[in-house]
């Protein structure tokens, strides 16, 4: 019973924490975010396994985590409201070369981030060349170029 309850609790707690951190936190991985991810993994490990290095315990933990993952994906597919709250929705942050400032501030995305994404994915040089920029649910920014005359 123990490993199942323990892993379920940690799964849910991590879900809430990472969700509250927002999509920008762990998605656009800087080297520091990578270290953060490692530390979170390390901190979680002991609580998950708790002095019990048996194969049974490890398998029960893995079993629980994967089952929860399947269960959540199933529920998300059937109940859109759950999916919205768990993953968020995509949001347009630049329209016709004009950044939507108040939305960007709330989502903690800067114009520099948008321009970086524009250069990386489309080779664009200026904000005005962007028709649309969308902050996706994964935390990445997708760019649709504008064809200027």
């Amino acid at each position, binding site marked *: 019973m123990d490993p199942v309850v323990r892993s379920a609790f940690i799964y849910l707690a991590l879900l809430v924490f990472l969700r509250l951190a927002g999509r920008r936190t762990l998605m656009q991985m800087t080297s520091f975010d990578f270290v953060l991810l490692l530390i979170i993994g390390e901190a979680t490990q002991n609580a998950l396994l708790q002095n019990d290095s048996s194969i049974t315990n490890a398998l029960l933990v893995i079993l629980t985590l994967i089952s929860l993952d399947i269960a959540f994906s199933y529920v998300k597919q059937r109940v859109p409201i759950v999916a919205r709250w768990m993953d968020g*929705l995509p949001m347009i942050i630049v329209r016709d070369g004009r950044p939507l400032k108040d939305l960007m501030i709330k989502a903690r995305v800067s114009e520099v981030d948008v321009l970086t994404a524009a250069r990386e994915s489309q080779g664009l040089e200026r904000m005005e060349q962007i028709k649309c920029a969308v902050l996706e649910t994964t935390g990445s920014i997708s760019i649709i170029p504008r064809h200027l005359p």
Partner: protein
Amino acid sequence: MVRNGDLEINEDLQFQRRMWKVERMGWSAMAILLIGALLGLFGNGPVSWTTASGESLFVEYQRFGRYQAPLQLRLHLQAGLVKDDILSFYLDRAFLADVQITRVTPKPVVEQPISDGIRFIWSSNAKDGSMLVTVSYQPEHIGLLTSRMGVGDAASLSIRQFIFP
């Protein structure tokens, strides 16, 4: 899927604003938890440490502990308790059942099982001055831990601790 300009996208700004509001509330909750943790709400801090006094002894202990994390009882035994060079102290069965005692300092000469727990016996010839005895232990049970203890045959004193998972 909704059309938004040329984009086929399920954007919903109203939902987005609601989500941000919940997100900010979540941040406040996280801040409150953090402050609580710094104060000792989850063990080891000013809110956690407290004392209880009874007949011939007073105990410093923590209100909050964590599962399998080290805790300590600091027992201050009053002067004049030594009889025939012997000083004794007992802990009840509930304490024994729910924690693992890792160390008692100073080391008792005898550890005696008694009907309702365990008795520690030290040999001492101190006639005055109070004595400090520490019991280090790890909770093995989650939830409320109520334990009774006492010196010699004196009436027992009970303390309550909450053990977080």
